[in-house]
């Protein structure tokens, strides 16, 4: 319970008091809008740091935390996709959020070893750069949550289970639409 409750409590307090001032941060782009290319300041734990999104690359930014069981459950699936698409300009970033003990994250990543071979970053607790510019700005209250960026635009914000090889192939082929992706998931 404890691990789940920490962000829960924070959110509850937010909802009660400070949430109304959430607009002090610029809102996160809507689907289809341009994204700010600079990646927020985070601590890179594994893989090549991403300083800014490049126009000709596809980014799958997956928000997770060590206390989030569904996030961890999605990792083998994400890792497999990463291995299949890493040479096709698709960059997977496992962005740790909503926790404040980096050593815990380090230990988890170490234990996962090759099971987690994509880029991993630690964002720090509430109020961190990533928290302000992405988590709060996008109104993320639950994880896992996946942001897909192509051509410096946010093309989808979804759950990692909605991703599969065919959906990523749509992105690679420049044929991605949400409806096309959903049609593939339904199959």
């Amino acid at each position, binding site marked *: *319970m*404890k*691990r*789940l409750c920490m962000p*829960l409590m924070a*959110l*509850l307090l*937010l*909802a*009660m008091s400070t*949430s*109304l*001032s*959430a*607009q002090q941060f610029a*809102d*996160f782009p*809507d*689907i289809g809008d341009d994204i700010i290319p600079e990646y927020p300041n985070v601590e890179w734990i594994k893989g090549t740091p991403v300083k800014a999104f490049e126009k000709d690359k596809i980014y799958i930014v997956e928000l997770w935390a060590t206390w*989030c*069981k*569904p996030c961890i459950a999605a990792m083998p699936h994400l890792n497999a996709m990463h291995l299949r698409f890493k040479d096709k300009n698709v960059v997977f970033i496992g962005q740790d959020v909503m926790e404040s003990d980096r050593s815990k994250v380090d230990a988890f990543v170490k234990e996962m070893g090759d099971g987690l071979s994509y880029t991993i970053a630690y964002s720090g607790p509430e109020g961190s750069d990533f928290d302000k510019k992405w988590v*709060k*700005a*996008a*109104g*993320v*209250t*639950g*994880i*896992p*949550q996946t942001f897909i960026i192509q051509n410096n635009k946010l093309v989808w*914000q*979804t*759950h990692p289970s909605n991703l599969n090889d065919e959906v990523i192939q749509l992105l690679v082929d420049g044929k991605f639409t*949400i409806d096309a992706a959903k049609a593939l998931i339904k199959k």
Partner: protein
Amino acid sequence: MILKTLFKCSLCVGMATALSAPAFSQHKFTINGQLAKDIQGKVILQYNSHPNTYVRDSAIVRNGAFSLQGEVGDPYFASLQFSDNKGGPKMGRVSDYKGFFVEGGTIKIVSADSIGNAAVTGGKGQADYLHRVALLKTLNDQYRPLAEQQAKMRMERNMEAAEALQKQIAPILAQQEKIDSAWIAASPDSYAAFLLWIKTQRGFIEDEGIKGFNRYSAAVRNTEQGKLFAERIQLSKKLAIGNVAPDFTVKDSLGNPVTLSSLKGKNVMLLFWISNVFGFDSFAVNMRKVSKRFKDKNFVILGVSYDEDSRWREAMKATTYNWVHTTDVGGIGNKEAISKTAKAYGLSLGAVPQGFLIGPDGKILMRRLALTDAELGLELEKAVK
């Protein structure tokens, strides 16, 4: 998404029982209890005598014997708790209680020792309930020790072990659901089965729910809960896609009246909302996204707030383009609609926030909008005229 699901639940759990309570019938009951002869203390009975009427009663237990009288409309599930008068329930102390159906007639509660082990006999509701208990007995015997073990693991913060136990518990629960739905399907005359079925019907009642309801005998459909469900069906039909959205008048921030029909000719996202809900952040961010997406379109957000005055004025500042801000504060109760507007839309505290998309002709285009879904704007775009 863990928390999002919670938020969505808050949308669907409390579809309001909007219409005023019809005059209900009353049935007198008497409860006669006999526990072990050496038991002294008191029993506390808690039940609903009618859908929104909570009753708490108590009686002295002398030499194991006690008696209670009361009145109910239809059978309701009640809890009877024993207290030895040595202070209230303490943390970690398992209370001694029994659940059963309270209904017209005489109810007998007999135990050789405590209330928890008592056998309860009464009317048809209780008999049906006991039938279900018997159907589920084998599963329950498997479930209970696992659940207790899991609760212990959680107390000890051993989440991995708790999660591992869930793998054993989940198939038992799935099996229980199967048995329950078979029992429900086979019991069109059982009020106890009906109460269980109602719990599966959330939000607006669609065709399948109407069919399900019509399977029940007239006696079941004419109970208080049956009539309330029939009202929910009427409300769902009234607010069906393609129907004209019920008109209403509320006040804007300056106190001027705003009428829904005055916005005819525009697409209207009608939003009944309150800021004091879990997940408000993602809701607010999403609403700002929608308003930005449609800022140059023939589109307006009509926000009807149920917040207290100061709070909604503050929350208003967080919104951006093309909003019409209004308030219907005090219009909803915990479980029921109070104002004319809330009644027309079947609103209660559990049913907000709730959104509708209304076309320029005043007809409903979408209902139960997924207000925290990142794709809401795209869905609206497909539907607007």
